């Protein structure tokens, strides 16, 4: 078990390393660099900028050095916890991100909790009561959920929350709490806004996981061990939870990392549409500005979250299914 964990951690770190290289390359891919983007912006403002000036900025920021040197410098900083300076904000990247990252984490975490708590209970209900009215109802809702684009759902929910709940549109806070320090009231206010992005981000995933749970559980319910467990006199509920549901959790858990990926990659767009004060809008802007270090750090953080999610789902799976433990050991 410990051996497997160590090996998995190794894989995760190796993946992270490769991902960091790819991140860096991707950021550098668009033609030009921050110096060009800066010049273009000043130019658009009516100023005249000479080529030497651009070159000077480039040199000052170290953007003229070979790519691998830039990468190594960046990585060396990352390892020590320094993410470099944001070229646009002229502040440390870590500072810029720190303001917004907690909200992203809260949003991602809440969405995951939403997806799995709703999907598991409805999935189980649908399978156990196959072809019942409830099953048909959730099947229809599920297909609608899968087929509705996030932005449309976002607009609908914004309208609903404004019209029926009298909430301000967009954002995560009511105006009076916008810049207030953290307090109980502010937390409550945030939670009352949080459901909109959570539902927007989570609906497709929930619908998908309901289908998965239902299909897998229906399969498991026909297995011999279910009737064998019933024949021991176990109550139906305990039998369901301990036997078929437990097995049906495997495919659910193994897609945890992948679901988190979907949530995290969906989050920036939802963040922009709903103008949330999380990392989403910041990320988009950093890409437009070619703010190398900021964008790099953000991609790296997103990737780390995904890799961590996958790692957790792997570990959970090993804990859940002794057959995997057994295979890996022998």
């Amino acid at each position, binding site marked *: 078990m410990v051996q497997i964990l160590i090996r998995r951690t190794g894989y995760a770190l190796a993946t992270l390393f490769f991902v960091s290289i790819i991140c860096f390359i991707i950021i550098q891919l668009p033609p030009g660099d921050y110096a060009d983007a800066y010049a273009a912006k000043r130019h658009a403002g009516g100023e005249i900028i000479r080529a030497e000036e651009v070159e000077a900025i480039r040199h000052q920021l170290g953007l003229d050095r070979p790519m691998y040197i830039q990468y190594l410098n960046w990585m060396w900083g990352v390892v020590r916890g320094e993410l470099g300076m944001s070229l646009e904000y002229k502040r440390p990247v870590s500072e810029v991100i720190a303001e917004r990252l907690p909200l992203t984490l809260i949003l991602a975490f809440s969405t995951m909790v939403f997806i799995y708590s709703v999907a598991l209970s409805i999935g189980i209900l649908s399978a156990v009561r196959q072809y019942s009215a409830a099953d048909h109802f959730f099947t229809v809702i599920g297909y609608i959920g899968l087929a509705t684009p996030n932005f449309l759902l976002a607009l609908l929910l914004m309208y609903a929350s404004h019209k029926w709940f009298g909430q301000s549109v967009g954002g995560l806070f009511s105006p009076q709490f916008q810049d207030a320090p953290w307090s109980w009231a502010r937390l409550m206010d945030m939670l009352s806004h949080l459901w909109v992005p959570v539902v927007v981000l989570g609906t497709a995933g929930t619908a998908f996981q309901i289908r998965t749970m239902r299909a897998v559980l229906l399969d498991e319910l026909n*297995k*011999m*061990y279910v*009737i*064998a*467990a*019933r*024949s*021991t*006199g*176990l*109550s*139906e509920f305990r039998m369901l939870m*301990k*036997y078929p549901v*437990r*097995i049906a959790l495997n495919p659910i858990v193994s897609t945890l990392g992948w679901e988190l990926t979907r949530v995290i990659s969906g989050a920036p767009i939802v963040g922009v549409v709903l103008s949330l004060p999380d990392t989403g809008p910041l990320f988009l802007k950093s890409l437009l500005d070619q703010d190398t270090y900021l964008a790099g750090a953000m991609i790296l953080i997103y990737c780390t979250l995904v890799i961590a999610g996958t790692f957790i789902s792997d570990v959970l799976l090993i804990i*859940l*299914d*002794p*057959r995997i433990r*057994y295979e890996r050991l022998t």
Partner: protein
Amino acid sequence: MPKDMLLEIKDLEISLLVESHMVNIIDNVSFDLKFGEVIAIVGESGCGKTVTSQAIARLLPRELKILSGKILFYSKIDERVLDVCKLDPKGKTIHYIRGDQIGMIFQEPMSSFSPVYTIGNQICEVIRLHQKVSKKKARNISIELLDTVGIPNPVAAVDQYPHEFSGGMRQRAMIARAISCNPSLLIADEPTTALDVTIQAQILVLLQELQKEFGMAIIFITHDLGVVAQISHRVFIMYMGKIVEEGSVHDIFHNPKHPYTENLIHAIPKLGNLRERRRLVPIRGNVPSIFDELHGCAFHPRCKFFMPDKCDVHFPKCKHLTSNHSVWCYLYE
């Protein structure tokens, strides 16, 4: 119900409900079982053996309904005879009968245990469900049981997972779980069908020994008449949801009356056959589908004694040949 009876099934009818249609699966089945008696129910696949046995523990899937009939079972906890058909299948009574007074083993030992819990966990669960014992005590009982059913090194086996067991060992563990609460009835639904011939014989011997040791009654279900001679006292031959012949093992093997029974006997491979070069005789045709509307005796399309306008009109009445040998066939009317 007489005092020495454990189980009495009377005129049991079970139907399959398909979109407001009803198809009869079990038709007028009656049999009984004394305390400590071993009976065999024999018939080709699809003739309704599993459905009959699951009805006794009310384990039928939703689409199968008991239409009429009685399943009288002497419950030692209540100290009286209950009609299982009248119990709520989700109620308390059936739950303390299952596993405690009726143990069941199934055809597929490979999939009868959940792969994600240890054998010990799945046996202890049953023990603790029906008896007030500590975890440690339940574990010790499990180890003893595994020993009783002949699993080598039971102390280690109790913490092993099903995939670490061979098919034969799993069936032994399954038997251990089924008898863990000392049931008065053990239902063995084709327990040896999925196993190698040598393992089959071992399991049969084990069941026989356990029966002698614990004295429970056994309903042994099989499609292979060859394995019943050794273990059972009485045999019921089933065809398409009906019993067509019943009798002692001796009657059935040495004096079979129903053409179907005879056919089953000729289909048993015997070691001697190889030397004598006698051919095995397969039964003509296949078991019809439950959706075929067959009137009269369902065996008539395959029967070489088929009598038109008789066999295909009404099902024959019961003919008692001796006190416990009966047959349902127009040849004897």
